């Protein structure tokens, strides 16, 4: 018996082992010996040419996938940086033949970069365009255009077409920007200019022939440079690495997004439809990736609007993360933005969700795709064909030049004796950088904006250095395969084995001469009211183009309700009841003009010009919290302004009073018939002002009172100046003058008097940071704490409002928290913790925040940040390698941690406390409410239907660049639990501003909404009912 068990166990083990084998991956990695694709981008570094001489030495080659012989099978063209480019003809059965020599496409430039396919001469056959870097390090040649001779040979004709640019090329995208029927081209170049000093943003207005991007118009087989007249920047500081074309604003004209490396802003060119573009980044993007790399566009949330991802180089792995150079300091970012005029940029991937004509909502952290290491190509596609967009990210670098031990210690040991030599560092020193070969990433998309990491389940987790990536159906089985161009390794052929587990629909276009592949076409696939939207722009990702087809995953749908094809000329046609699991070839047929007019929204809110005279602009007085306490998780001096409404001069009109921080004077605006005027006399200023919101940080007060006759007052303690974590006691003042101290409440931010036990008197609910909502029952004028939630609900709570959100007749409480779109993470099982103590015993306290990652607690901050506050860590960890990957206990020791005061957060989600028989159950708000901290609520019958709704606003900027900028919450109108709308759909967009208060006031018997922002103007909206 025992023997059999043992045997069975062994068998089970065997099965388990098989379960992890390569065979079970969604993608099979096809070997070069089987496929015949033996291309390898071999880099040869030596003392006269390496990353020191050319900053993009490791950016890799290009990759184009497309059917060059019109046999229905996509072929592969790889560009190599230093060696021959190669063309592989797809012979079927995943077998390929290298026809480079006979085809005449090996290329003649010294240093090749991107490679794309497009029908440049409009004859229905794909041509190949290869960009080159020319003019530095003796690099010779020019961009090459291989025109297809329709017989598996090509003729290099770049000069003839005017496309023989000899610049610092990255890649190119062919598309018809002026809708004249032929393909124009945007050539992305990169700077090699010193990035040692920021330089002024104005540099971008002066064209540099080598590094400036070019827009070239197709004038019938010759191309004309129209960059300047079209409004394309061409500066010496543009490190163009990412290029995406899409009709972002759905007006029928293709737009352009350019990702720039280093400090130069990305460019968002909106097509004006008259041959010109307007760069509009700041209007639509609150912040961007800093070291922008590849990017891609797809509608990931079924709203028919193209969303965008831009990659950066933030590592996920603790060891790499903590030994690599990360974000700027707070001060450097302030200088770069305020003094030099650059936009907000942070070192991580960014996912921008298109909100139509409003700013994009950036959700990479919420979506789970913010950190994929040294990432090059992003490509959205429905790999498992479940109807949702998945994401492939290529990844890796031969050597990590931003390894902090290399920067600070290793390199200098090697270069000590070279101070007087021109060449400071040699190949042997460069060899000492750690390898950056890592696994590529693949994510499965969900129905909304979330992704799940499927690396090692869908693709092999073997380390590679993969760059340019293309997707297409290499084996003609309907699902999409992936090909990567790798450095010093054979190209990766990832063959998709979804096969018949889910259905697909593939579409090729046979569009008009000049653009026979139908570049710029759009497809809306509708089924059961669910939309899948795609645009055909094959030049995507990174230095690459994919197979020029549209592919939809169709799950188990046999027949899709309808397909709407919108052609590049903005006519459309509809196909109904289309069978899936087929490849359609569609040509324009009975197409009719398509209207891009958007359905008119009936806005509830309308901005009032002149703000009714409420011209108050708040400015934080103190702005240096991080200078004083380097490790606090967020600022505390920036919670202003404080405001209150009152009738200060007894004229029955509501006046408004603001105060902007600890030392600021209060400013009173008096209401009159015409609006508001600032009261300069001060005679109407109330003697004592009981602010009903937190003051600045020395000791924050919140006062509220029981309005039932006898006055009970509550005063909440927030924090002690320069001693974050030292929480002053909150206080209750009884009518008889008695005072009660509440010592262990937490960092109080808001409170509300409300009869939660329905006994006719007002009870008190208090919320705050690093604490759970606290309930105090009013027992005949005595406040007694009650536990009314089953779980601890420690959050970073910002605001609370009573509201019957589930419409069951009792009062629920809406709670604003930090949201889920941040690097903070917390759950019941793995709370975020903050330790508070004088760890270095020098009389000054510090705080260390740690989060749970793969089963262990790690500090959020790295050695540089922690040791700037705690010098002893420099002695304990003399290298970054010795620190990286260390847990809190390993860094500080159990004793120090147990001695310290420990704060916790169990949830960061905003949500509401559902009232169920006088106990409360916390329910999270949906995703659209989690994109930033929620700082303000206002309850009012906004749409005049007799029912109250709640308007929520938020966003918060008081964090270091490591965290970024929480600017992505546009606000939301909450009618009920199931009816929550993004605020921009009702005429008000609160994104990019940091809202502190929302307040409805009446003026001339009309309701108006006041939006009080931090460090910004007050905005007044008319409420149209």
């Amino acid at each position: 018996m025992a023997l059999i068990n043992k045997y069975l166990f062994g068998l089970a083990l065997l099965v388990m082992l098989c379960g992890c084998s390569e065979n079970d991956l969604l993608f099979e990695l096809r070997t070069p010996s089987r496929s015949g694709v033996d291309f390898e981008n071999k880099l040869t570094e030596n003392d006269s040419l390496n990353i020191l001489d050319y900053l993009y030495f490791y950016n890799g080659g290009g990759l184009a996938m497309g059917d060059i012989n019109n046999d229905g099978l996509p072929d592969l063209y790889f560009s190599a940086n230093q060696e021959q480019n190669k063309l592989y003809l797809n012979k079927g059965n995943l077998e390929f033949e290298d026809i480079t020599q006979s085809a005449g496409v090996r290329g003649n430039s010294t240093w090749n970069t991107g490679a794309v396919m497009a029908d440049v001469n409009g004859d229905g056959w794909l041509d190949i365009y290869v960009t080159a870097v020319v003019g530095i390090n003796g690099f010779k040649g020019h961009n090459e255009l291989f025109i297809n001779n329709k017989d598996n040979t090509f003729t290099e004709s770049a000069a003839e077409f005017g496309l023989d640019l000899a610049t610092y090329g990255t890649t190119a995208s062919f598309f018809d920007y002026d809708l004249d029927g032929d393909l124009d081209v945007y050539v992305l170049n990169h700077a090699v200019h010193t990035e040692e000093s920021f330089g002024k943003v104005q540099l971008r207005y002066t064209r540099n022939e080598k590094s400036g991007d070019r827009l070239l118009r197709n004038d019938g087989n010759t191309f004309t440079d129209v960059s300047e007249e079209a409004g394309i920047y061409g500066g010496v500081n543009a490190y163009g690495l990412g290029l995406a074309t899409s009709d972002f604003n759905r007006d029928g004209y293709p737009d352009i997004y350019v990702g720039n490396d280093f400090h130069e802003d990305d460019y968002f060119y909106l097509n004006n439809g008259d041959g010109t573009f307007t760069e509009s980044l700041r209007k639509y993007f609150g912040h961007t990736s800093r070291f922008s790399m590849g990017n891609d566009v797809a509608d990931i949330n079924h709203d028919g609007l193209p969303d965008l991802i831009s990659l950066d180089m933030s590592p996920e792995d603790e060891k790499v993360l903590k030994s690599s150079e990360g974000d700027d300091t707070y001060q450097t970012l302030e200088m770069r933005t305020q003094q030099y005029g650059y936009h907000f940029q942070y070192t991580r991937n960014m996912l921008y969700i298109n909100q139509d004509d409003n700013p994009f909502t950036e959700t990479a952290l919420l979506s789970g795709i913010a950190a994929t290491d040294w990432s090059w190509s992003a490509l959205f596609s429905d790999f498992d064909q479940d109807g949702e967009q998945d994401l492939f990210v290529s990844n890796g670098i031969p050597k990590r030049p931003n390894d902090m031990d290399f920067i600070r210690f290793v390199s200098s040991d090697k270069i000590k004796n070279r101070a007087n030599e021109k060449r400071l560092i040699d190949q042997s020193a460069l060899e000492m950088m750690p390898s950056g070969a890592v696994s590529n990433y693949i994510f499965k998309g969900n129905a909304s904006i979330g992704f799940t990491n499927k690396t090692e389940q869908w693709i092999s987790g073997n380390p590679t250095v993969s760059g340019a990536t293309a997707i297409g159906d290499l084996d003609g089985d309907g699902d999409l395969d992936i090909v990567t161009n790798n450095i010093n390794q054979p190209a990766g052929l990832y063959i998709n084995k979804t096969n018949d587990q889910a259905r697909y629909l593939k579409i090729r276009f046979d569009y008009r001469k000049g653009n026979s592949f139908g570049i710029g076409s759009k497809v809306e696939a509708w089924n059961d009211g669910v939309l899948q939207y795609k645009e055909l722009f094959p030049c995507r990702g990174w230095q690459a183009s994919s197979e020029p087809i549209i592919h939809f995953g169709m799950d188990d749908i046999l027949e899709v309700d309808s397909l709407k094809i919108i052609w590049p000329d903005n006519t459309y046609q509809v196909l109904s009841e289309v069978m899936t699991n087929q490849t359609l070839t569609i040509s324009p047929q009975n197409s009719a003009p398509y209207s891009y007019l958007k359905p008119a929204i009936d806005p509830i809110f309308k901005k009032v010009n002149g703000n009714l005279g409420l011209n108050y602009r708040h400015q934080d007085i103190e702005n240096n919290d991080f200078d004083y306490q380097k490790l606090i998780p967020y600022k505390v001096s920036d919670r202003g302004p404080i405001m209150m409404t009152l009738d200060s001069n007894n004229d029955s009109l509501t006046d408004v009073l603001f105060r902007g921080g600890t030392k600021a004077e209060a400013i009173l605006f008096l209401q009159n018939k015409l609006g508001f005027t600032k009261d300069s006399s001060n005679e109407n200023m109330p003697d004592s002002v009981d602010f009903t919101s937190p003051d600045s940080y020395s000791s924050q007060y919140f006062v509220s009172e029981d309005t039932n006759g006898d006055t009970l007052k509550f005063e909440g303690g927030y924090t002690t100046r320069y001693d974050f974590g030292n929480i002053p006691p909150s206080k209750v003042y009884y009518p008889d003058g008695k005072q009660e101290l509440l010592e262990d409440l937490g960092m109080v931010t808001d409170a509300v008097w409300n009869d939660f036990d329905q006994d006719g008197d007002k009870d008190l609910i208090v919320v705050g940071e690093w604490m759970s909502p606290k309930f105090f029952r009013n027992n005949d004028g005595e406040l007694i704490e009650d536990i009314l939630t089953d779980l601890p609900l420690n959050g970073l709570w910002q605001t609370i409002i009573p509201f019957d959100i589930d419409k069951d007749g009792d009062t629920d409480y809406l709670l604003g928290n930090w949201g889920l779109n941040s690097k903070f993470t917390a759950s019941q099982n793995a709370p975020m913790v903050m330790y508070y103590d004088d760890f270095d015993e020098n009389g000054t306290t510090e705080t260390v925040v740690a989060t749970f990652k793969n089963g262990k607690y790690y500090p959020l901050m790295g050695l540089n940040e922690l040791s700037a506050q705690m010098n002893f860590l420099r002695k304990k960890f003399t290298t970054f390698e010795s620190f990286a990957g260390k847990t809190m206990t390993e860094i500080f020791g159990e004793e120090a941690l147990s001695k310290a005061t420990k704060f916790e957060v169990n949830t960061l989600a905003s949500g509401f406390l559902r009232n169920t028989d006088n106990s409360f159950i916390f329910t999270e708000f949906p995703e659209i409410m989690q994109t930033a901290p929620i700082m303000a609520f206002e309850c009012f019958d906004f749409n005049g239907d007799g029912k109250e709704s709640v308007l929520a606003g938020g966003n918060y900027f008081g964090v270091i660049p490591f965290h970024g900028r929480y600017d992505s919450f546009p606000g939301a109108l909450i009618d009920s639990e199931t009816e929550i709308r993004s605020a921009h759909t009702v005429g008000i967009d609160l994104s990019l501003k940091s809202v502190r208060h929302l307040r409805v006031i009446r003026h001339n018997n009309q309701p108006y909404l006041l939006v009080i922002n931090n460090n910004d103007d007050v905005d007044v909206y008319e409420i149209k009912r």
Partner: protein
Amino acid sequence: MSMYMKLKDSTTTMRILPFLFLVFLLNSCQEKQELVPVEITPEDYQNAVDHVTEIMIHDIFSPPQASRIYVYPNIAAYEIISHVDPDYKSLAGQITDFTPIPTTSDSLVNYPMAALIAHMDLSKALVFSEEKMTSYSDSLNNTWSEKNNLEFEASKEYAMKVVDHMNRWIDADNYKQTRTMSKFTVDIDDPARWQPTPPAYMDGIEPHWNKIRPLVLDSAAQFKPEPPPPFSMEKNSEFYKELEEVYEVSEEITKKGDESEEIEIAQFWDCNPYVSVTRGHLMFATKKITPGAHWMGITEIACKDTDAEFNRTVHAYTKSSIAMFDAFISCWDEKYRSNLIRPETLINQYIDENWKPILQTPPFPEYVSGHSVVSGAAATVLTEIFGDNFSFMDDTELPYGLPVRGFDSFNKAAEEAAVSRLYGGIHYRAAIDEGLTQGQMVGQWVIQNLQMKQ
């Protein structure tokens, strides 16, 4: 050894012990080696300081921090030798809050050895990379204990007592507290105020160094220099002229080429412990010694040139490092008081946006020049010790790929170090002239107030 211990413990045999012991000792020595006192040479001391310099380069200590790492171990060593050498007088009561070190009656103690052990042990505590110091001191310790373990153990025991005493005093110098004090807040609204400079745009370093306890000065502000010329971008203002001078000098010597004397001088005295280099995503640093380390090197050269014996060597190191320690406090006090903008920032803004100084601008305010103050202080003290017109060949920078330069006197060297900052494009004239004067005053004060020679 074990025999000796046994005998010593046995009181009953004490009377016959001396004789027996001597016989035993002689016998054993004939078999092995003679137990003679280990000779500790001036070179041993110099090598140990050089080793500390190397570790500081690795660990990247800023110039003020480096001055602190030099001075305390030197003081410990000096106190030990002054204890037995009637030529030298203890610093107890002469430098702030410093009390006499413990004494010992153990006749086996080798004082130079104890001095060196204390020096190395304190250095180890002050640098980050302890293991680099430990491996060095362990190898010396092994040699000594092989040669004469009794002497070594006794010296070590005594050295550790002194180290304890030193540590209590060092601990109260406010260094620990200044580590956690606020970062320097840049005033971006005032065009005259310092701003971070390319390429690393680092925070201003050590904004609270004036709160470090000085050794001889009565306060950080004791030798507060004249304020710099008032900030003005008016073409005929004194300030603007000085700004223009930086630009013009730089342009002129750049035209002359890298071989020009001025560029050679600038590079020779760069003494920047961390020059960061950025090439795209590739970053690295060239690391050099600090100004303090350079003058420690000159002190070493002077000691060698004069064949200074051990105690004289320790004295010279100690006095010059005390002067430099106070010089940095004095200088840093002014830097964050006047908080003046660097020429690089202004030249890029108003004159030439592509201009880069020959030396990388270090990350702290401009006025006064740190190298000028420190060189002034060090040269003044060294002149007092070794005399004026002391000509020497300065090969301190040789390990860093820089040439040897000859000087007729310490003061000449200091003057060149000061003006090198103008050639390097990182200081205006006033910071150099006033800095040198300030340093000389600090040096004079040290000379007047410290009585080290009996």
